[in-house]
C-alpha cells in the first residue's frame, strides 16, 4: 500500500477512534449534572469535530484514489520520514528523558546532565570527535548549573552526588 494512503488511513483511524471513544465516555461515564448546559458540552463538540474530520479525510482519500491522484494529498515539499530513525530517536530521547529525570532526582542534576548529554551526543551527532565528547557535556552541565542552580535556585530533593 502507498505510504500516503497508509498515513491518511492512520490519521482517519486516530480521529474516528478518539471521537467515538469520547462519545462513548460521555454516554456511559460519570458526568456531574449541570443546570441547562451539561459540563460535557465542549468535549462533545470537540468529539463531533474529530469524527467529522476523520470522515472528511476518508472521503477525500476515497475520491482521490478513484481519480488516481493520491499524490495530490501529500503536502507540497513534504518528505517521507525515516520511521526507523524517528523510532530510535524517540526511544533514546523520550525514554532516556524518563531515566535522566529519575537520575536528576536521585543522583544529582549536574552529574546526570553531563552523562545524558554525552550519551545523546555519542549516539546522535554525526562525526563526533572524542575531544568534542569530552568538552561539550561538561560545558552543558556548567550552563545548567549556572542557569538553574545559581540563577533561579531550582528546588530538587537531596541527591547522592552533585
Amino acid at each position, binding site marked *: 500500500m502507498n505510504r500516503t494512503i497508509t498515513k491518511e488511513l492512520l490519521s482517519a483511524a486516530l*480521529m474516528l477512534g478518539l471521537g467515538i471513544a469520547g462519545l462513548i465516555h460521555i454516554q456511559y461515564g460519570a458526568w456531574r449534572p449541570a443546570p*441547562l448546559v451539561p459540563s460535557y*458540552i465542549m*468535549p462533545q463538540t*470537540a468529539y463531533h469535530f474529530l469524527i467529522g474530520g476523520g470522515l472528511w479525510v476518508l472521503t477525500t482519500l476515497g475520491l482521490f484514489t478513484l481519480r488516481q491522484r493520491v499524490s495530490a494529498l501529500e503536502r507540497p515539499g513534504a518528505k517521507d520520514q525515516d520511521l526507523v530513525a524517528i523510532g530510535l530517536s524517540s526511544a533514546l*530521547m523520550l525514554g532516556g528523558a524518563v531515566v535522566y529525570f529519575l537520575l536528576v532526582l536521585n543522583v544529582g542534576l549536574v552529574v546526570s546532565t553531563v552523562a545524558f548529554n554525552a550519551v545523546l551526543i555519542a549516539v546522535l*551527532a554525526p*562525526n563526533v570527535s572524542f575531544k568534542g565528547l569530552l568538552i561539550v557535556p561538561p560545558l552543558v552541565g556548567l550552563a545548567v548549573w549556572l542557569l538553574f542552580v545559581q540563577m*533561579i535556585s531550582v528546588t530538587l530533593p537531596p541527591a547522592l552526588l552533585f
Partner: protein
Amino acid sequence: MLDLVIEASALAFHPYVLMYVFLGVLLGITLGAIPGLSGDMAIALLLPFVFFLEPAMAMGLLVGIYKGGLFGGSIAAISFGVPGTPGAAATSIDGYQAKLKGTPSKALHTALYSSVIGDTTSDLVLIFIAVPLAAVALTFGPIEFFALYAFSLILIAALSQGMVAKGVAVAAIGVLLAMIGRDPITGASRLTFGMPELSGGLSLIPVLIGIFAISEVVIQGAKLWRRKVDKLMDDVAEQASLLQGYDISKDRLTWAEFKSTLKATYIGAAVGTFIGALPGAGQSLAAFMSYGLAQRFSRRSEEFGKGSLEGIASAESGNSATAGSTFIPLFAFGIPGSATAALFGAAFILMGMTPGPSLLTDNTAIIYALFFTLIFANLVNLVLGKILLPYYSRIAMIQPGFMIPAVFILAIVGTYAANNSVVDVWVLLFAGALGVTLRLMGFPLAPLVLGFIIGPGAERALRQSMIMGGGDWTVLITSPIAIGFYVAAFALILLFTLALRAKQ
C-alpha cells in the same frame, strides 16, 4: 497620555531591558541561522525563565529573540539554500541563486533591510490598530466572543498548511487537552481518568514546550542519526569552494540597487501585515504571496528565481511583516493567531496578564513599553545585522549534533523549574510524543496550541450563551456581529483556497 508615554519609555528604555533586547536579538539570529532550530523553539524554552524576570525585561528578551529569529532564518537560506525557518523558504529561491552568482553580501544586506522595513511597518499597524479594536471588543458579549473563538479556530485550522480536516481535528484535540481538570462551573473533575494529579489541568509550559520544542528536537535527532547532516556539511564545503577568489569589495549593495528593491519591499510589507493579522495564515504563506505579487508587478520579472534582489526583498519583507500584525488578534481579542503569538500569550499569562481587550486597559504602561520595544528591537536587529553580517554565515555552520541534546536537556530542566513539578515533566514528555506522532501523520501543530489556549475561554462563552438562550443552540446566531464572524470565516477560507489553487 504624555504621562503614560513617559512611564512606558522609562520602562522600555531601562538599561536592563535594552540589554535583554540585545541579548534576545543575538540569540534569535544565532538559533534562526541554524537549520532545525528556530526563534519559536527558543521562546518556548525560555518561558520558564519569564517567571523570574520583570515583565518589561522578559518582553524585551522574547521580542528580541522573535525579531532576530525572523532575520536569522534568511542567513542559512541565502548562504546554503537551507531555510533556517519555514518562513525563509521563499527567501532561499533567489537568495541562494544570488549567492551562487557570487553576490552573497548584496543578498544578505537586501534581506536585512527589507526584513527591518517590513517588520517596522507591521509594528506600526499593530500599534495604531490594536487599541481601537480592543475598545470594540470590550462591547462584546458571550455570543460574539464564542463566534470570534470559532472564527479563529476555523480559520487557523483551515489555513494551516492547507489541510482543513486535519487542522479542525487537531484543534479539537487541543480543546480536549484544555478540558482536562476541573469543570469551571460544577467543580467536578473531567477527563482526569482517576488521576488526582490532573485535577488542576495541564500546565501551559509543558504542553507548549512538548508540542513545539520536544517534538522538533526528536525529529531533528532522527535526522542527525541518519547522518543527513553529514551530507549537508559536505554540500556546504562544496559550495564554499565555489566562492574561491570572491571579492567582497565588488559585492556591496549600492544605493541604486537598494532603491530598486523598495517597491518589492513595500509589496511584501503590505501583504505580510495583512496575512499576519489573520489567524493561521503564517509567515510562509505571506512570504510566498509577497514573492508572487512582487514578481507580477516587477519590470524585471524574468530575473525572479535567478538571484533577483527584488525577489529576496519581497519574500523577506513579507515574512518579517507578519511580526507585528500577528499580535493584533492577541491584543484586541485574546486570540493568538500564530504559534509565536500563542507563545507570547502564554508569557503574558505567566506574568499575570490576561491576553484580550482588558490587556491594554489593565496593563497600559507595560503594553506601551512593549510597543516601544518592538520598534527598538528592529533598530537593534538592523545595527547588529549590519555589524555582524560577515560572521553570521559561520553561525549556521554550528553542528546541530551538539546543540540538539543541550536544547533537549534545557527543555526538561526548564519545565521542572517553572513549577518545581514532576508531573509537568511527564506532561512535557507526553506532549512531545504526541507532537512527534502528529507530525509523522502530517497534522499541523499550530491549531492544537490555539485550541489548547482558547479552549477554556470558548467553553465559558459557549456555556454562558447557552444559559442565556435556555439551552437552545440557535442563540449562537442571534447576534449580527456573530453572524458576521461566521460569514467572514467561510469567505476567507474560500478566498485562500482559490488563491492557493491559482498558485498551484
